[in-house]
């Protein structure tokens, strides 16, 4: 008999749909904005005469991120900023709404809380081996997240996303006047710009691994569950 579980609430599915669009647009437009000054620095200031720690030219011979990865596809800083700053609002407020909803409906406490014992080396090792063997679900609790899954979701929701949003706000000369403590927190505007980039790489890496695992776990089933909420327990887990 086919066993299905209601795995994702409406708020989670909505947030996921918004993010699926927003993250791709923000990464693409962000790479175009990086093209306008393809170097990163540490500290309060940084321009052509200062020493960068990273140059796009190290990765791409042309010194710019190629057009197939950027929004727009041909060089246009003004429109890239329009895309980026519009969808930054979408990403930020969607995260806020999702966090409030997930505290109220106890999604965080029930599904994402890292429990005592989860972080024991033995548990982590066992989960890693299960992943490598492409077993992603605990047969006894097929609907529950495994440890590595929890850790990656928790670190993205509570570290990478807040980090990318706060460092983004730190780059705003307007907000610097209202919240100067952000500059102190990240060590200056150019440091914030660097951390923004690192957090974006983290989110891009998460997205790629996430998609790869969705494919390995069964695209049809995973897609249905993130769209309708209903997830079919795989045969081998029953």
């Amino acid at each position, binding site marked *: 008999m086919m066993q299905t579980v209601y795995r994702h609430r409406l708020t989670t599915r909505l947030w996921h749909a918004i993010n699926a*669009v927003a993250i*791709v*647009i923000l990464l*693409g*437009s962000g790479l175009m*904005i*990086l093209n*306008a*000054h393809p*170097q990163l620095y540490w500290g*309060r*200031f*940084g*321009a*052509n*005469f*200062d020493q960068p720690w990273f140059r796009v030219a190290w990765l791409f011979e042309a010194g710019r991120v190629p057009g*197939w*990865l*950027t*929004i*727009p*596809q041909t060089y*246009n*800083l*003004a*429109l890239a*900023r*329009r*895309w980026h*700053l*519009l969808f930054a*609002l979408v990403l930020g407020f969607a995260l806020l709404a999702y966090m409030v909803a997930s505290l109220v409906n106890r999604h965080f406490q029930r599904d994402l809380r890292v429990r005592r014992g989860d972080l024991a080396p033995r548990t982590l090792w066992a989960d890693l081996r299960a992943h490598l063997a492409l077993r992603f679900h605990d047969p006894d609790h097929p609907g529950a997240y495994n440890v590595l899954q929890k850790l990656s979701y928790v670190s993205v929701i509570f570290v990478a996303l807040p980090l990318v949003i706060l460092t983004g706000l730190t*780059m*705003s*000369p*307007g*907000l*610097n*006047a*209202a919240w*100067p403590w952000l*500059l102190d927190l990240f060590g200056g*505007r*150019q440091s914030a*710009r660097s951390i923004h980039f690192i957090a974006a790489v983290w989110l891009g890496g998460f997205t790629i691994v996430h*998609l790869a695992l969705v*494919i390995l776990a069964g*695209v049809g089933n995973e897609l249905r569950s993130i769209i309708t909420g209903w997830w079919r327990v795989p045969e081998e887990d029953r």
Partner: protein
Amino acid sequence: MILTRRRALVGGLAAGAGGLLAGCDAVQGTDIGRKLLLSGEPATQALQRALIDRTALAPEFSADQRSPIFRANGTRNPNTPTYNASLAQNFADWRIRIDGLVARPVDLSLADLRAMPARTQITRHDCVEGWSAIGKWSGPRLGPILERAGLQQRARYIVFHCADRFGTRPYYESIDLVDAFHPQTILAWVLNDRVLSVPNGAPVRLRVERQLGYKHAKYIERIEAVPSLAGIGGGKGGYWEDVADYEWYAGI
């Protein structure tokens, strides 16, 4: 069979992401897409204006926190016959006309400007491109100058007309009255204890510290108070706003 289906799905996902990237180009080409895209700016402006006190100061730094070299960008030399002639006599004939919706239009010479009480501030200059440089600026505050000219009730924006040209188009910029009367908004004629150099906007440039670099008009020759930005240049309040869709409100 499963492998091919998997491959097709992987290909589909990759194409989906690529399609989204390319789709953005299509969206920004449509009227509705453009309108949506441009709706971010008023939202950002409203949020920032609500969050930031109108007199909140941009961070100021100590002398040893300055950039070793302050980068110049945009026009590095207006190089017009009039500008060059004025430069040759150290801008002795330079006048900044303050007019538009004011009770008493004024012509300020550099001597007038230099005689006024100056504000000195070490601030960070953020280019829209992403780089930052910290420098020490001095010059009189714009607010008292506007008060002296007597701003009329209908005035909403202050427009800065500049001596540099992009092709034939003159550079210009504009700010609203919140920024015009902000304590750190100055007409700077000193950078890092030296008279402002040509690449950085000699003889006078605007400092409007809570916004990005392109708002800081250089080579100022006229300051005009207006009721709306509609009649000026392309109508969007600045050279870059007109030609390339840069935001008029550049607080982010």
